[in-house]
């Protein structure tokens, strides 16, 4: 009996091991995508939470950061791991300028004003890049991280995405600490809760808004700065990321940084599992379906208050 039984047992175990590894691989892919989504979403979340402004140009900010990193790499040979700082700084400035020149005039107006203004900005940025850089796809080759992978048995962990994930956790952690444990952060929270009361307490809310728009930009700038390592840069690249960031923020709860992190991870994992176990074409359907379900039952999002 045993002589006949053991091969079957073995093959079943092999099948199980194989499927366990597949599950883990799908999970790893999902978590790594999720961390990237969370980093992109963190910036949007901050702006939204403090100012009640939806920055419709968020995806385009990401695209601009990718171009900054790409051009630094292509023209000056700077690796994205270094130019991530320049991309972050550039989009910080872009955020500050956006606030100073556009968003400032929409604060206190109906929410649609800021939405339409930033939508216009998104069109402007996208078409500027299309005009200046052409619609061609640009891939940065020979980067430090390149296509490196780490093999853990049968599991494959892509190093560029892993590093992006670690950077995402660091940046999100820093922003969380900044908001919750510094005088600046308390001022931000006060401004978010009641702008007029915060002004009466001597907080320069105008400056808070300016910096928040800048920091929100820097978050997405850092995400975009690292991405040319593994994703082609072109003027349309930010669109879907912008939409997913919006979903992460709404699902996580407006203004909640841990919410954005959790929602980003959830979106990544759901996308990955739905894509593999249902059908690849359903991966975004599952994500948007989950979003609808969450906002139907918890209108303020998972971590909203």
């Amino acid at each position, binding site marked *: 009996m045993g002589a006949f039984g053991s091969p079957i047992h073995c093959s079943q175990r092999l099948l199980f091991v194989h499927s366990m590894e*597949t599950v883990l*691989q*799908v999970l790893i*892919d*999902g978590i790594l*995508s999720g961390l990237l*989504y969370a980093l992109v979403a963190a910036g949007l979340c901050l702006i939204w939470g403090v100012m009640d402004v939806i920055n419709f140009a968020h995806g385009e900010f990401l695209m601009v950061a990718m171009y900054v990193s790409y051009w630094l790499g292509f023209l000056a040979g700077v690796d994205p791991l270094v130019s991530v700082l320049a991309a972050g700084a550039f989009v910080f400035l872009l955020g500050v300028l956006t606030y100073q020149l556009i968003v400032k005039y929409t604060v206190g107006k109906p929410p649609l004003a800021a939405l339409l203004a930033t939508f216009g900005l998104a069109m402007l940025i*996208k*078409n500027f890049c*299309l005009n200046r850089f*052409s*619609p*061609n*796809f*640009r*891939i940065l*080759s020979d980067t430090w991280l390149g*296509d490196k*992978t780490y093999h853990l048995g049968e599991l*494959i962990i*892509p190093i560029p995405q892993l590093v992006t994930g670690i950077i995402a956790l660091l940046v999100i952690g820093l922003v969380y600490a900044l908001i919750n444990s510094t005088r600046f952060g308390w001022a931000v929270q006060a401004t978010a809760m009641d702008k007029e009361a915060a002004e009466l307490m001597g907080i320069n809310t105008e400056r808070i808004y300016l910096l928040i728009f800048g920091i929100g930009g820097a978050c997405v700038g850092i995400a975009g700065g690292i991405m040319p390592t*593994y*994703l*082609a840069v*072109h*003027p*349309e*690249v930010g*669109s*879907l*990321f912008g939409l*997913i960031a919006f979903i992460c923020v709404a699902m996580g709860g407006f203004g909640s940084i841990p919410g954005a992190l959790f929602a980003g991870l959830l979106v990544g994992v759901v*996308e*990955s599992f*739905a*894509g*593999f176990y249902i*059908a*690849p*074409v359903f*991966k*975004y359907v599952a994500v948007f379906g989950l979003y609808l379900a969450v906002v139907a039952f918890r209108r303020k999002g998972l971590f909203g208050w």
Partner: protein
Amino acid sequence: MNRKSLRLLGCVAVAAVLCLLLAAGPAAAQQKVIKIGTIFPLTGPVANAGQRCQAAVQTAVEIVNGQHPGVKVPLAKKGGLLGGYKIQLVHADSQGKPDIGKAEAERLLNQEGVWALIGSYNSSVSGPASLVAERAKKIFMCGASSSSALTKRNLNYFFRLAPTDATESAEFVEVLKWLNQKQNANIRTIGIIYENTLFGKGAAGEAKKAATAAGFSVVVDVPYTPGATNLNSEVQTLKTKNPDALFGAVLGADYALMVKTMKQANWVPRMSINYCSGYQDPIIAKQLGKDADLFMGSNAYTPQFATLLPAVAAVEKIFKTKTKGVPFDGDSIQEAVAVIVLAQAIEKAGSLDPEKVVKVLHESTFDSPLSLGGKVQFAKGGQNIKAFSIVTQLQNGEYKRLYPAELADSKAKVVFPMKPWNKR
């Protein structure tokens, strides 16, 4: 109003009238104009292909309108049509979206009053846009869209130059048989990855039909959302099923992402063959560098076909001035052919009556030194029955001609199976 301001007003009025007269002057002199509308995705995810197609149309129009003794293409030396008519282009951007393409077709026909339309790269846009032209009884020349459904509608005013995905699917299956025979490849199973659009679904449907009929088994079928943020689940699905051969209908940046994701997942099929899409885009091939190597696909043109198509060089020289040095690819060259065939038909009809030109298009065979077929002839429904493409393999960044054997590069040898990523 005092006298001084009256005088100023008078001067402004005179200047305005003068400007109007000056502007009207050349227009009056250029009345012999054939207005043709183009609809391409000039923005959006496949804008680089769309802009190249538009540049190809402009190149062909420049050749037809001017006198180019060095260009060995019909009508290049005449300088205009029907004894002095010049083609004037009116461009529109579909953004790759069917609804916008259709609206632009309506605008071009009804408001701009164009005589014919050329477009639209995306099969999903060419479909509705050509229906608008059909209703208006205007000619629609379609260069590159490959969905075979387009010419199955039996429209009267629609003419398509490129080979269909049905033709290409049949050719791909022949390549598999050829590999099985010559290389002992033992290919049995097929996977298909395609964008979830009219083009992708059409190509996948034809691929399944052709493969099943030839006794191959389609083990995995992966549609994906164009412009996806990642293709991890798609490639993971393919890797798990591990088909011997992979058919791809993947456009633009998605193609680059697919190749990169395959590399990260450390998986390649034994062979991968792609429809006229990201594979044959010279920019993508250059950007991907060595990673693009050993993939196969169909091309209607690449600069490596120069010996087969000697007439292209002079045309390509003009084309490159419009694309910052990027050469023709299989899609853009079809749009240039569309213009030259239409111009020949107008000339042969001797009239701008669309009915007469359509009759010529249906009944004649046209010389086409820019096409691999050498001739263009349309069947009922508008398909160019002389259209075909060559199956190539990228080796060290060059498209090597492999199939059909009579057009193959004598020095090129197919690399089979594809080398694993860690052994390249």
